[in-house]
């Protein structure tokens, strides 16, 4: 029983990382209509930014996290302005941006390799909360609690932002139809920048938290998050952050349980079979609205 609960928490924390990453990926997809192959590199670079903040300047833990989050957000804005903005005027749809995002993926991945000296680095143990919290018979690492809370806060925050605020309404409007939104008085440029930053920052948070708790700061970090975060987005429905959050957590828990109680070789197979089942049976995801059709 103790093992069961411990693994449940392990899976929950792991899934929270997938979900956090997926939220960023889904935001760009639903609001800006971009299938962004470079999204994983935001997470890698956020972790690298956080790592060097600690390594070079010895900053405390919250500052390292902030460095990663802001770094991820700024990188996303730069990529958007160089790679995607010139194509918006030319109306190339999803296709052109997909190719420029592949270009950025190649560039940023390769540069990340140089930035870490082709090594997998790890945050020094003293630079983050690395104790275990004892709750009765359970021992839970502090980083897991931080990760779980981070997802809760981000999900609720972003959900409220999109559904209840004027900015959110503008984001939804741009996601629906950019031209109509502009005619309706929405500053589309502002919304695009804000969405890109928010998406990069959320995925950056996943990157820096993941980099700390898995002792892996390298370009492989983003790739791993990308594959699973993508699954969370598809299962959860890309136009609703709540769906992504729940789907991500479930995927993490399922992954851990399949490895613990069945077999590791089936673990990824199980995840992707679930993905396939959702694609066929409920293609709009958990919370995806049935009427949602992009113009």
């Amino acid at each position, binding site marked *: 029983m103790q093992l069961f609960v411990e693994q449940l928490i392990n899976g929950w924390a792991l899934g929270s990382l997938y979900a956090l990453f997926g939220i960023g990926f889904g935001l760009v997809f639903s609001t800006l209509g971009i299938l962004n192959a470079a999204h994983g590199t935001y997470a890698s670079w956020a972790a690298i930014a956080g790592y060097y903040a600690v390594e070079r300047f010895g900053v405390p833990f919250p500052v390292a996290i902030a460095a990663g989050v802001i770094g991820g957000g700024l990188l996303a804005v730069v990529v958007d302005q160089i790679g995607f903005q010139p194509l918006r005027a030319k109306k190339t749809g999803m*296709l*052109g941006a997909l190719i420029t995002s*592949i270009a950025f993926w190649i*560039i940023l991945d390769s540069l990340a390799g140089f930035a870490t000296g082709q090594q997998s680095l790890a945050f020094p143990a003293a630079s983050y909360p690395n104790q275990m919290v004892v709750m009765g018979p359970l021992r839970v690492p502090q980083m897991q609690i931080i990760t779980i809370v981070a997802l809760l806060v981000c999900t609720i925050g972003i959900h409220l932002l999109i559904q209840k605020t004027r900015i959110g309404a503008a984001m939804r409007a741009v996601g629906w139809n950019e031209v109509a939104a502009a005619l309706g008085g929405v500053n589309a440029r502002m919304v695009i920048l804000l969405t890109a930053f928010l998406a990069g920052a959320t995925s950056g948070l996943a990157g820096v938290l993941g980099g700390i708790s898995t002792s892996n700061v390298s370009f492989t970090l983003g790739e791993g998050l990308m594959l699973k975060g993508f699954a969370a987005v598809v299962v959860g429905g*890309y136009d609703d952050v709540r769906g992504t959050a729940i789907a991500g957590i479930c995927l993490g828990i399922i992954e851990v349980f399949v490895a613990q109680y069945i077999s590791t070789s*089936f673990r990824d*197979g199980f995840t992707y*079979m679930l*993905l396939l089942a959702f*694609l066929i049976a409920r293609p709009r995801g958990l919370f995806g609205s049935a009427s949602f059709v992009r113009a």
Partner: protein
Amino acid sequence: METFLDLWAAYGSTVTFAMVNALFALSTYAVLSTGVLSFTTVVFAAVGGFLAAQLSGKFGLPLWAAFPAAALGGGFAAAVVAFAFLRLESHWMALASLALVLITRVTALNAPALTGGVNGLIVPVRVEPLELAILLALCTVVFWRLHRSWFGLASRAVREDAAVASTMGISPYRIQFIAFLISGVVGGLGGAALAFTLQFISPETYFIGIAFTMIASTVLGGSFHWLGPIIGAAVFTALPTTMQAIVPQIEDVAKGVVLLLIMIFLPRGLIDPRAWGLKKAAKLREETEAKRAAERDAHA
């Protein structure tokens, strides 16, 4: 002659890979030209590749018998995929097809009896560049004929506006289904061609790398004409070799930058029939104006 042989020996493999990639790009183009962004070419390639590898490895099938089998396998996979996916809205289609690529790799990894699992398969048969060129030429002829046929016209209509196309009596579903079948056949051929070129395949062979290579080749070359994917594949395949020769330290970065620049400045790709059309129209306009001016002068 010697220099030529040296050059061929050095860059022959690049040409070979360019031809294989051209098949993948044509497969992607087949569906893209009806307005569907799909990564499932990788799936068809995996089916064709493993089928061809097993048939030639276990049953000693010769090359030219393995290719049709791979084409059939790819086509069959495409029929299944099209049946399941075509009802999805276009954004979901893109996501779903990407998910299917991930699923294919995991499935291949867990079916070692069929695919060799993590250790992969040695392919005993080798395709000569000339044979590959013939195969690619055959496929190109088919695409050329299709482009000029009713189907080509209908697929362009569906791509531009599916709703309008259906009011004109064209069923977008039927057009896209046929496009998927073509994509499957060509993708299966490409998968087999890759297997016979590398002579070693594993589940990692048919993964995201190919997905991005083929979509980048297609869009880079131009997705509005069958020549586009072939040119695009040649450019995209030659890019790493060129960059390695020029800037070996940062070849990947350079490759990405070149891709980025081409897309920003030529977003419709290198081969763009609309640009030809515009040029032709401009020339025509110039000529008429010149004629008119001449007439005016004559009257004056």
